[in-house]
């Protein structure tokens, strides 16, 4: 199984898109590429589980290590564990959905689909990297498409939002870069596997952990670096919002997780700061959402709150909470992509995203409204949907931490769910229920492509929500390994 295919397929798709003529060809190529990638991810899952079933307990499977820059000891080292695979599956689902909802994009369609595919390529490369240099490379590859997607195809104050997002993410990656350099100069390698084996001196960890962790934290909308999220998401075109919240913010969460695993001493030392920031993000995000009147802003701010759970789970540093963090990443990715898709569908028909101006949409567009309600219910953590499983796992994990302050953080974060329920139910009630105004009564329901995209995402949400053991089965060995490794280093010191 060659993981490089995960990069090559998007690359090929992107090149073909450049050569294609006409909207029809472009979107068919884009969809074909995305579906092929989804198929590949599915096949990857099958062979991964088969290999695990056959007793292959190596931390990373399908490893391949090729020298890239020999003199600098930089290698193209790739491989996946259960966490990375979960992220790859998430990405491939969202890419297919994102391309489907962009089906009728007519403005500069070639460039649009090209950038979408390029963005996804960066994400895939990021998730399969086992070398920090490659990881960083792909992290930055994904930044520029975001800038252009928002700036060219966005709405509202798009150039300002695009600039803000690009600069903040660039600042995040500059921090990451400093952290990685520090690691490199004290271990003489960028290789994650090697670094894990040989360990990093505790002093180095303490100095460079904040850079790397906060750097990734910017991507994951960690308070106080979350300010790019609302404007960026609100201004972006639908598919770009889905990619941003569904994939791009996960790059940050995944990076934070890897950094915590690489520098366990520092992670333990700074764990209280991480938890503090995460708790603030959760509560602040939830309350800020209450004040929003624009659907996209509602979802963007709630993303800050939800991504706070990811960081909280990582910061608690135990098996269950780590598991919860990963599930929350996948769950939030699917849910928020679904939410943005629904908002995009509504906006393309009503030309407004203001909750107050909407109403009674269920009567005119039952399918879209149902999708909206499902996304909302998942967001507020209704059992049966993925949001419940994810948040529940995070809470269970963080409650295991007996320290009083940690308990308090858990309780406060748990309480935020009430706030979530308030804003979700209010928005749903206003926009979906109630009497419909005459101008919206004749609007059409979802088209086939929109339906397909929504069904795909809902399927993902339901699979996690109804059969959480499936994803647990996939990621648990990997999170166990990480926690075990972190503990080992701790005992050694």
């Amino acid at each position, binding site marked *: 199984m060659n993981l490089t295919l995960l990069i090559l397929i998007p690359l090929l798709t992107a090149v073909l898109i450049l050569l294609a003529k006409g909207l029809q060809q472009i979107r068919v190529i884009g969809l074909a590429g995305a579906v092929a990638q989804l198929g590949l991810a599915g096949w990857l899952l099958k062979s991964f589980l088969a290999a695990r079933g056959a007793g292959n307990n190596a931390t990373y499977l399908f490893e391949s290590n090729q*020298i*890239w*820059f*020999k*003199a*600098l000891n*930089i290698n193209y080292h790739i491989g996946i564990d259960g966490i990375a695979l979960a992220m790859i599956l998430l990405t491939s689902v969202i890419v297919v959905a994102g391309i489907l909802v962009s089906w009728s994009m007519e403005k500069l369609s070639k460039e649009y689909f090209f950038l979408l595919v390029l963005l996804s390529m960066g994400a895939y490369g990021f998730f399969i990297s086992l070398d920090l240099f490659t990881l960083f*490379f*792909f992290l*930055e*590859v994904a*930044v*520029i498409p975001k*800038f*252009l997607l928002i*700036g*060219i195809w966005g709405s509202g104050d*798009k*150039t300002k939002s*695009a*600039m803000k997002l*690009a*600069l903040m993410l*660039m*600042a995040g990656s*500059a*921090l990451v*870069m*400093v952290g990685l*350099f*520090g690691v*490199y*100069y004290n271990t003489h390698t960028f290789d994650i596997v090697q670094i894990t084996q040989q360990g990093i001196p505790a002093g180095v960890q303490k100095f460079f952990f904040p*850079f790397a962790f906060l750097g990734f934290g910017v991507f994951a909308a960690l308070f106080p670096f979350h300010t790019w999220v609302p404007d960026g998401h609100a201004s972006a075109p639908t598919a770009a919002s889905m990619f941003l919240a569904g994939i791009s913010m996960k790059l940050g969460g995944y990076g934070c997780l890897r950094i915590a695993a690489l520098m366990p001493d520092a992670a333990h030392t700074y764990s209280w700061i991480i938890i503090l920031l995460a708790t603030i993000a959760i509560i602040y995000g939830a309350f800020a959402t209450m004040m929003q009147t624009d659907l996209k802003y509602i979802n963007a701010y709630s993303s800050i709150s939800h991504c706070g759970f990811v960081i909280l789970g990582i910061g608690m540093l135990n098996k269950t909470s780590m598991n919860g963090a990963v599930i929350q990443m996948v769950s939030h990715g699917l849910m928020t992509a679904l939410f943005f898709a629904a908002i995009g569908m509504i906006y393309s028909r009503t030309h407004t995203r203001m909750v107050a101006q909407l109403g009674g949409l269920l009567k005119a567009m039952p399918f879209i409204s149902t999708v909206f309600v499902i996304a909302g219910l998942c967001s507020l953590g209704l059992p049966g949907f993925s949001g419940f499983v994810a948040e529940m796992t995070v809470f269970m994990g963080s409650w295991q931490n007996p320290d009083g302050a940690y308990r308090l953080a858990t309780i406060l974060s748990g309480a935020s769910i009430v706030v979530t329920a308030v804003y979700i139910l209010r928005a749903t009630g206003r926009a979906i229920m109630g009497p419909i105004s005459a101008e919206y009564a004749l609007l059409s329901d979802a088209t086939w492509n929109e339906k397909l995209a929504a069904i795909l995402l809902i399927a993902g949400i339901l699979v996690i929500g109804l059969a959480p053991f499936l994803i647990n089965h996939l990621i648990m060995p990997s999170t166990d390994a990480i926690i075990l490794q972190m503990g080992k280093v701790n005992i050694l010191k």
Partner: protein
Amino acid sequence: MNYNILIQLRQELALTVLIFLLLFIKLGKDRSNESILNFVNAALLVNLVAGFCCQETGALFNGMFNTNTLIVFEKGLLNLAALIISMQSYAWLKHNKNVIEFYLLTLTSLLGMFFMISSGNLLMFYLGLEMSTIPLAAAANFDLTKRKSSEAAMKLILSSAFSSAILLLGISFLYGTTGTLTFSILTAHINGNPLQLFAFILLIAGFAFKISAAPFHLWTADVYEGSPVAVTSFLSVISKAAVLFTLVNILYKVFTPIANTWYWVLIVLAAATILIGNLFAIRQDNFKRFLAFSSIAQVGFILIGISGSSQAGTASLIYFVLIYIFSNLAAFGVVSVVSALTGKENISDFKGFYKTNPMLSWVLTIALFSLAGVPPTAGFFGKLFLMLAGAAKGNYGIIIFAALNMVISFYYYLRVVKAIFMDEHATPIEKIAVPAVSKLAMYICVLGVILTGLASVVYDYIQSISFGL
């Protein structure tokens, strides 16, 4: 007869022959500009390729002139840049009466740089430096009808003369304290006594003038703005690269005993240069001024790489210069074509540029991303390797500083991208018919920007021929 001298001097001799050929063409009957340009471009291509054949290491004239694989490669880079600039200036030179003079001046300057890079003696170095500067000042005045052009030439010649004087003073002090001007003997006599340190500071100041490191950068923006685009790109790429190659040679090979001193000098210069370049670049509207300040900031990053004083330091410098040639010349190429055919040189004129000129827009965008250091372009690798080399001494402060400055630089590069793709303009620049030669040059640059980074063979090769402290 000893052919060795011919082989070791082949790159210089080739240029000399070309210069004389051009002189004869000038004296002969009138030829069309197209044929002259085609001939020169072909000759420069031959010159570039021929330079790489028959590698020979050795020294001539009692060690005045050195050559080895690295030096040949460095000269090859300059030849490449000269070729690309010549191809990109096609549209501008096609209607210029004095096309031959342009080449006479720039090629003579290039020849001077070759001698400077090869120099093994401070006198030879000074000779090469002067030979490279004076023709450039004349070339800066090439737009005879524009006042700004002659102003630029005046500024260039005055500031160059000033910096040369400082340099000479430093050289004389050095001679006074050591009694020699030959690099290999000098090293043994350098012991860091106050007069030597003073001489060193004067020398560094002279170098800083030439590479426009802050606080010696003040001439840069005005000269770049006033000169014709071709001369500006020549100044910002070739002339800088040549002085940087020489600087690293002198620092690593001559001032070895006081490495700790110059390390801090470089760090301070680098920090100031990056910051000032970045801050001034933010507010520029004229494209050439913008690129001038951006190139100042780039030099700051290069100085960080040099400060690493290792083999990786030299390698990352040369690697970055190669990438810088591709990315900066791609940007200048677009500006050059646009300026030659429409006369517009401001960033605000480029609003809505993508609607009318998608190809040029992409070339410019890719070039700017490479200058900003965004993957997958080569600029990402170049900047990262410079910083990796610079961090080798454990000075993480400068790395943090540089990383933050990369974000600032990102802002102003994105500002241009924003103008091209996102802003509206009532009358955007109309569709431009790019001459085939210039188009080819742009494609070469873009290809270089993409491949130089991803294909690690380039870096590996450069590293294998580099030297450390």
